[in-house]
């Protein structure tokens, strides 16, 4: 528990150099009692969020949605429609905020970028612009000619790279995948960790790969400009990690290797995001910031379909890590159908009448 035990900032940057040190560190983290963690998550789930608090939560949740389509059947048309919806989720209500990001396969990035960029800067945006002062710590000046997020109307463009969802491809392929997505305009890369290596205890391998992808997030300029153009979300695929102890270790491993976000799931295995898994990850980012001073975001993805679910996550963020993370820069929902439910609930709150799915766009 050395890492969390200290309130003084620690330099953990050397850990990645030695497999032994990395293992000792990860196995020295405090354990997670499954029953206790699940009970805490369930307790937070009983919070009753009503009226003004609910309205506030719904708008925040909309701004946190990574509106996602990751199907083999995705087409440019589908992606364009999705990007349009991301910008203007409820065309009938201009006060409705835009979502946090659009999330697509690398081959679909140009089509999404085309829609998002066309809207140009200065679009109404409820959220702080990406790269704003309160925003990400690694953001400074955007590289010239890069896919500056501000060019995307406030909506980020995320792409799942690294041979998503299995991650079973040679490193070179994954790096090329990543660079291509960045070059095509993605400003967020969602990578998957090598679960096989992690479960086999080859933490160094997992670490090195994350470092390499993080480097590739600089696109073709990687290593020259010295500054990544895209943020890295590291998918732990918690459904395959089997224990919360592993989730905690994988979270720390991803953060130590430079991940800007840790994300639960690809959405392509039977168990996706859950409240207790997210709780363990939130505790990890909280402890990591206490130890290093660096704040890392969290993204539960998959299986979050209703407003009620989303609000439970927001309550959990609020009561576990506090308001610092209650911002699209630090918390996202990887979801597709969630957005429409949020919109329906939003309308219900405004009008007092229950909404129906026919009144919200399908994309």
């Amino acid at each position, binding site marked *: *528990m050395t890492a*969390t*035990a*200290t*309130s003084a900032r620690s330099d953990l940057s050397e850990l990645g150099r030695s497999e032994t040190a990395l293992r000792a560190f990860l196995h020295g983290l*405090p*354990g*997670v*009692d499954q*029953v*206790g*963690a699940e*009970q*805490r998550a369930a307790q937070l789930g*009983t*919070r*009753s*969020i*009503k*009226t*003004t*608090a*609910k309205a*506030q*939560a719904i708008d*925040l949740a909309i701004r946190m949605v990574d509106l996602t389509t990751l199907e083999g059947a995705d087409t440019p048309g589908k992606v364009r429609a999705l990007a349009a919806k991301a910008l203007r989720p409820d065309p009938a209500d201009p006060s409705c905020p835009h979502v946090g990001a659009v999330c697509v396969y690398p081959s679909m990035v140009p089509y999404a970028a085309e829609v998002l960029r066309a809207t140009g800067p200065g679009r109404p945006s409820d959220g702080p612009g990406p790269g704003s002062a309160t925003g990400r710590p690694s953001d400074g000046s955007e590289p010239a000619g890069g896919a500056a997020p501000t060019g995307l109307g406030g909506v980020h463009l995320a792409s799942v790279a690294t041979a998503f969802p299995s991650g079973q491809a040679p490193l070179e392929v994954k790096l090329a995948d990543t660079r291509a997505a960045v070059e095509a305009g993605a400003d967020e890369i969602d990578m998957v960790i090598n679960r096989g290596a992690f479960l086999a205890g080859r933490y160094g391998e997992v670490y090195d790969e994350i470092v390499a992808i993080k480097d590739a997030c600089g696109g073709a300029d990687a290593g020259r400009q010295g500054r990544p153009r895209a943020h890295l979300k590291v998918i732990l695929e918690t459904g395959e990690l089997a224990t919360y102890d592993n989730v905690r270790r994988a979270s720390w491993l991803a953060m130590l290797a430079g991940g800007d976000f840790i994300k639960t799931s690809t959405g392509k295995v039977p168990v996706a995001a859950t409240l207790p898994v997210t709780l363990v990850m939130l*505790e990890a980012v909280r402890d990591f910031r206490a130890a290093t001073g660096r704040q890392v975001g969290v993204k539960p993805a998959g299986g979050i379909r209703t407003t009620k679910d989303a609000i439970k996550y*927001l*309550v959990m963020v*609020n*009561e576990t890590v506090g*308001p610092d993370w*209650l911002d699209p820069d630090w918390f996202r929902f990887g979801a597709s159908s969630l957005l429409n439910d949020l919109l329906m609930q939003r309308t219900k709150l405004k009008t007092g009448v229950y909404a129906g799915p026919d009144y919200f766009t399908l994309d």
Partner: protein
Amino acid sequence: MFEYAPAPESRSVVDIKPSYGLFVDGTFVDPTDGGSFKSINPASEEVLAEIAEGGSQDVDRAVRAARKAYEQVWGPMPGRDRAKYLYRIARIIQERSRELAVLESLDNGKPIKESRDVDLPLVAAHFFYYAGWADKLGYAGFGPDPKPLGVAAQVIPWNFPLLMLAWKIAPALATGNTVVLKPAETTPLTALLFAEICQQADLPAGVVNIVTGAGETGRALVEHPGVDKIAFTGSTEVGRAIARAVAGSRKKLTLELGGKAANIVFDDAPVDQAVEGIVNGIFFNQGHVCCAGSRLLVQESVAETVLESLKRRMARLRVGDPLDKNTDIGAINSAAQLARIRELTDAGAAEGAQQWSPPCELPERGFWFAPTIFTGVTQAHRIAREEIFGPVLSVLTFRTPAEAVEKANNTPYGLSAGIWTEKGSRILWMADRLRAGVVWANTFNKFDPTSPFGGYKESGYGREGGRHGLEAYLNV
């Protein structure tokens, strides 16, 4: 900042009458001398109802009714029929649980979250569990045909009014006894609603009698010569007085009294769950819990981290309206209890311990005490020895497992203890040595009708719950 809007549970679900009589022989009756007292809502000091105060004649009437019911109806009744009445009661409690939960929170001050999610489910489960025993007593290990004792006098506290009622009445009835129960004077309302449930269940008259009142009523009940069994839950002081009062009599006595439990956190604990366990251990039910983990024993090497996490967590506790669904800590049950908490915390500060509470706004009316921890506490401090029965945690440190055991056992009490460590063999080593009736390892304040509960040493004798709980009501 994400502020939760008020989310009050509706109190319209429960209909509180302006006044209540005593429940004797199946009906509500006025007390002989007409005395009464008021039950108030401790969160607002609003009067909820006028309650009859039972005198010695009323107690006598209730004991006679119970005796008659024991001899003529309940004693001779086959176990399978007693079982069906208890199952009925369990079902009615489930059906009316929201009403009972709201009433409990109004009268006691506990958060609706707890009365709804903890007390009421356990109450129903307790009746359901003991219902099943009624026709199986011959298999309980007390001989082929164990007999009931007769009339049970039961005196219960105000911290879990309905749950303590269930712990007392369910096993007593299952084994064939009849009861006269005295609820605490600050929390009589759910017991009186339970009396209505008995009527609704068509429970034969006199099997359950509820006599409301304060200490004198309880004394009259305990000392009544027609009583065969006394079950008491409450303070060690009163328990001692009852033990003296029954000396030389044939009355069988079980006592569930105070505690000063150690919650022991080792350096290899699952720290986030341990912090939850500490919070649950001492702030659950405003700390009005006899088995509360009121002494935190934390290994020196992690004391700072654990305290830091604990304070951060305490800052998230929501203190306020018990009926708000998001309230974590409700009102202190009475002005007297609040005074007691203040007296002991003042003593803690005066004796040099450092007091800390998160910033929290307390309502103006009603009885409130912010969640509090004391650090720099030693075994010699009053706050480390005396039961505070409030949301106040004393933090002590230790260096080795043996020292933790020694400090944990260094108290006249022995009700419960907590151990937090990821090392299995250490849990078992510790559990063997802790002199406490319930040991929670990597969890705290868990209850179940199948699980025996009760103390060592001055925390009382006898067990409630499980097969063991039958013994208190059988002539064995």
